[in-house]
């Protein structure tokens, strides 16, 4: 019921029914205004539930917003803003909220207590996963996901400040004013749509003006400060190391196609003040969960801030003076108060409505909405007709963020609740209600004092002026659970009641952590915000201990649920991994080459020609180009590291197993790099361009790792070496020209053609390509006479196109990764498929490359007996010799007669190819004592793909074993 007709309303729907609401007010307020009481079904028992709170702590009123791919489940109706056309749906009910068939669970409730599932569905064991669990999960639950990709936009962002103030109630506003006026760089964040906290929800004065007006003035002043950033609709969700905070912003304004819905902030603050206020806790009395039973402060909020009366005849039940405030505010707003029930004996209340002191609510009635309550007063039971009960068991300071770094809060007896333990999170100071200061005056005072301290710490000179405000004492006599029959709900979201907790204690789950896991109290999105202290009190009572001895479970981030979409924002497509494109990318794509990922790079798989319908046809043809004519391949993706300095050669000697200081200028050499533990890290070549100048190449995959490794050597292990390294990978576009006609092709682009003996194998140097200085290397990864020609990247595209056209006129063409792989397997050249991190130089037959004339990384460890054991798996070639020609990578090797089971495995395959050159299925792999077993026929078994083949063990160099083709 609205207290006054609003000026401006918009239409929205709830379960298809049309309602009107004020734009920006919570959907909960609009539903209450429309007299909608039943809004949800509970998690486990499908009990009818209504709106309970007026904030992010809401346990009952979880709804789904939108439909289809854009449906968002488990949104709190208390946080969801009314907007034109908004579609809201209830959850966890079928066929409808009123007639929910699963409500039968509630009738079976005597059997469904805590631990029921574990006890009942234990046997037979396999049934749990296949039958019981899916059925139970379907019955219990919250909103569901659409299963469709979400098209909504989300964001992530970073922010920095000197002072982060979390919460903009009286303490937060006062802290922001104090620090902001002193010139501090402040971020003030609040999860509400407007700043002011309880000042917007209570009737009280500050400096003689209404609290809400004072708050509005404060916000206006703050908004005018350049050094203050106001973030509304932003919940600080977690406190992390070194002053980092997570915060979830619900982006303001109506949903629009390209507008982000939420933004997840990482805020870095030198200091932070927690002004998160306090949350009201329920009282456990029988059937305290009927729609219409609400938190007292929420009732005041709906009345005072949104002009909505949650009922026509309201009853108030509490154990402290704040409850009286509810009754008075209702009367002032013209709402009938049926009764004020105070559990304390020692209070005197004068009022125009019935007052019962020393009384308790012992029962409630009403199926889909509250109709009446029963109270016990002076030994008698009395029934009161009422459609709304405002309850308050006291206030729990919002200590959550102070627990995020694993510190527990401290029990404070006089407020019967926990307060933050000092220094719980370095740099985070609590102030106001979250610190146990419950009066407005105390909140303003603490906010100002803490902010002033921190401002001084920042070298500023703050002035403290605190306005005059209400300073009423908080007098509370704890009331946790009311005696009597019936279920008394403690954790509404998880459907945990007093008896569940007592049962946990009875079954010896006495520790608070065990009780939590046994009953599920305090789990799920709500994280026990409202229920924890009450649950602990009940557990303490059941185990005969005090609450402070009972202790508390810890609060973990996030304070409110954070959508995965916001945390993963920006991490799709290019945002997931940058795309690195070579200069020949466009030309390759234009030729129809499918591009495959190689690390972050995209490289062409193969270049299909007309009439080719299968990649193998293209691949076989490209292999043939290289073996018989000439092929061109972009090899720019290999890491290229420029090394200069007096100790450049010394650095290479130290990181490679073999000698580089003896390499002549104008020559390149193959090098093997080990990790310090003796295993192979990478291989490649280094070319010497000057006495103190080398260019190292790395594999595409290990380029970053090798760069890091070289810096490690120069900075950590050998700071005595005077050498400098710089990646030049991006500077050069480099192409392999491989095949018998490679020199012919090369000479079509060189300004000064080279002769047969000018560039022997492994020669390197500068050349002129159409007037541009390039670099030429006589190196081969195919076993053919081959060169690599590098030019500055800006010329890469045109050189590639030119080379491919010329190669085609010579009967060759471009080749891609597939052909490159076949060519290197035919020659037994290794890649990271073979040097996968567990292989040693000995395993790949290169132990002789470890020079003994110098120290190098990995040299000591490589000599350990275990790493040169002759029983180790050694690199071999494998050739299909049986009916099955197809070999697969990752398959296991067995002796012919052995059963193909793990203990009999003798090795595995790492790379496979069909060799058109040899017309055979080939593989590289590792085999126990493999080098001594050439000629033996063994069995390859791929258990996953169910392929079995007979293979002959041979030398890994299948083709041109003496290497004459590359040298010629």
């Amino acid at each position, binding site marked *: 019921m609205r207290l006054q007709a609003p000026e401006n309303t918009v239409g929205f729907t709830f379960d298809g029914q049309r309602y009107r609401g004020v734009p920006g007010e919570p959907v909960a307020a609009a539903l209450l205004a429309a007299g909608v009481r039943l809004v949800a079904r509970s998690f486990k028992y499908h009990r009818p539930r209504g709106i309970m709170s007026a904030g992010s702590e809401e346990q009952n009123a979880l709804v789904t917003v939108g439909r289809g791919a854009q449906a968002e489940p488990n949104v709190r109706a208390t946080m969801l803003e009314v907007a034109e056309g908004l579609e809201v749906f209830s959850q966890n009910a079928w066929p409808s909220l009123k007639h929910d068939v699963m409500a039968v669970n509630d009738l079976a409730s005597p059997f469904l207590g805590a631990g029921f599932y574990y006890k009942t569905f234990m046997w037979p064991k396999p049934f749990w996963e296949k039958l019981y669990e899916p059925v139970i999960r379907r019955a219990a639950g919250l909103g569901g996901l659409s299963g469709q990709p979400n098209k909504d936009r989300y964001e992530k962002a*970073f922010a920095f400040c000197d002072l982060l103030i979390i919460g903009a109630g009286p303490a937060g506003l006062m802290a922001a004013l104090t620090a902001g006026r002193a010139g501090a760089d402040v971020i003030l964040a609040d999860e509400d749509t407007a700043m002011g906290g309880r000042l917007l929800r209570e009737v009280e004065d500050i400096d003689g003006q209404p609290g809400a007006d004072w708050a509005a003035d404060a916000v206006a002043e703050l908004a005018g400060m350049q050094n203050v950033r106001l973030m509304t609709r932003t919940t600080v969700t977690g406190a*992390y*190391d*070194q*002053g*980092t905070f997570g915060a979830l912003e619900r982006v303001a304004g109506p949903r629009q196609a390209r507008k982000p819905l939420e933004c997840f902030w*990482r805020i*870095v603050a030198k200091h932070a003040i927690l002004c998160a206020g306090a949350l009201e806790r329920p009282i456990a009395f029988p059937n305290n969960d009927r729609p219409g039973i609400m938190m007292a402060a929420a009732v005041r909020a709906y009345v005072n801030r949104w002009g909505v009366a949650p009922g026509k005849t309201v009853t108030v039940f509490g154990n402290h003076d704040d409850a009286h405030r509810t009754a008075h505010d209702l009367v002032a707003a013209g709402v009938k108060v049926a009764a004020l029930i105070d559990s304390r004996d020692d209070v005197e209340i004068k009022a125009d409505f019935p007052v019962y002191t020393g009384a308790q609510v012992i029962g409630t009635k009403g199926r889909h909405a509250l109709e009446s309550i029963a109270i016990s007063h002076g030994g008698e039971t009395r029934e009161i007709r009422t459609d709304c009960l405002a309850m308050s068991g006291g206030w729990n300071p919002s200590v959550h963020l102070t627990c995020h*770094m694993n510190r527990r809060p401290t029990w404070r007896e006089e407020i019967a609740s926990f307060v933050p333990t000092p220094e719980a999170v*370095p740099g985070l100071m609590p102030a106001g209600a979250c610190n146990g200061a419950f009066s407005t005056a105390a909140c303003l005072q603490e906010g100002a004092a803490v902010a002033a301290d921190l401002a001084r710490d920042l070298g500023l000179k703050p002035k403290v002026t605190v306005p005059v405000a209400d300073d009423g004492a908080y007098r509370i006599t704890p009331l946790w659970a009311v005696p009597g029959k019936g279920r008394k709900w403690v954790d509404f979201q998880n459907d945990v009641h007093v008896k569940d907790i007592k049962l946990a204690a009875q079954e010896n789950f006495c520790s608070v952590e065990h009780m939590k896991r046994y009953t599920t109290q305090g789990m799920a999105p709500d994280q026990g915000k409202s229920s924890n202290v009450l649950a602990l009190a009940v557990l303490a009572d059941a185990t005969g201990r005090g609450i402070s001895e009972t202790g508390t479970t810890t609060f973990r981030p996030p304070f409110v649920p954070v959508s995965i979409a916001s945390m993963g924002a920006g991490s799709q497509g290019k945002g997931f991994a940058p795309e690195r494109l070579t200069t020949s990318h466009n030309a390759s794509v234009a030729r129809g080459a499918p591009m495959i990922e190689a690390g972050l790079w995209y490289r062409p798989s193969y270049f299909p020609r007309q009439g080719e319908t299968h990649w193998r046809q293209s691949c076989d043809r490209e292999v043939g180009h290289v073996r018989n004519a000439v092929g061109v391949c972009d090899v720019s993706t290999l890491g290229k590291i420029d090394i200069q300095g007096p100790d450049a050669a010394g650095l290479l000697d130290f990181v490679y197993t073999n000698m580089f200081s003896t390499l002549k200028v104008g020559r390149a050499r193959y090098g093997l790099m080990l990790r*310090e*533990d003796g295993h192979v890290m990478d291989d490649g070549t280094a070319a010497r361009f000057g006495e103190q100048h080398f260019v190292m190449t790395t594999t595409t995959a290990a380029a*970053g790792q090798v760069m*890091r490794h070289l*810096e*490690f050597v*120069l*900075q*950590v*292990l050998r*700071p005595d070496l005077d050498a400098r390294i710089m990646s030049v990978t991006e500077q050069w576009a480099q192409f392999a020209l491989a095949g018998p006609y490679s020199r012919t092709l090369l000479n079509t682009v060189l300004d000064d053609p080279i002769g047969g003996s000018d560039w022997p194998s492994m020669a390197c140097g500068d050349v002129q390509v159409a007037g541009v200085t390039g670099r030429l290397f006589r190196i081969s990864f195919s076993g053919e006479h081959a060169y690599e020609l590098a030019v500055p990247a800006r010329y890469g595209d045109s050189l590639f196109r030119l080379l491919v056209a010329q190669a085609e006129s010579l009967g060759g063409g471009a080749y891609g990764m597939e052909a490159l792989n076949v060519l290197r397997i035919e020659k037994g050249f290794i890649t990271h498929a073979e040097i996968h991190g567990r292989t040693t130089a000995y395993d790949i037959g290169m132990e002789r490359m470890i020079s003994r004339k110098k*120290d190098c990384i990995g*040299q*000591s*460890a490589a000599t*350990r007996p275990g790493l040169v054991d002759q029983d180790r798996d050694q690199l071999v070639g494998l050739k299909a010799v049986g009916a099955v020609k197809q070999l697969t990578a990752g398959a296991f090797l067995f002796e012919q007669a052995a059963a193909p089971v793990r203990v009999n495995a003798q090795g595995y395959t790492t790379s496979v190819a069909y060799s058109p050159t040899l017309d055979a299925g080939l593989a590289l792999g590792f085999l126990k004592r493999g080098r001594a077993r050439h000629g033996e026929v063994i069995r390859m078994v791929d258990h996953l793909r169910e392929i079995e083949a007979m293979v002959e063990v041979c030398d890994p160099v299948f083709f041109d074993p003496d290497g004459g083709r590359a040298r010629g």
Partner: protein
Amino acid sequence: MRITCPHCGERDRREFYYQGDAVALARPAPDAGAQAWDDYLHNRDNPAGDTQDLWFHEAGCGAWIVVTRNTVTHAVADTKLAAMVKR
């Protein structure tokens, strides 16, 4: 988590690559023997308290940094350029 790079100032942890214990600074001589190399390569303390490890400011200035931090409180007590650490 934030780490103060001696060159770049305080930066987010995501800019750094974590290597491991700063024992790596004390590489044994080639002939130091199996035990010394075993300790250097594999054996690590697991302190509940202060520890020193090596981080690489990979997405920043490229400095290797010795970070002294507390494994219990996560406090970072000190950061130094590895190249400047006496050994």
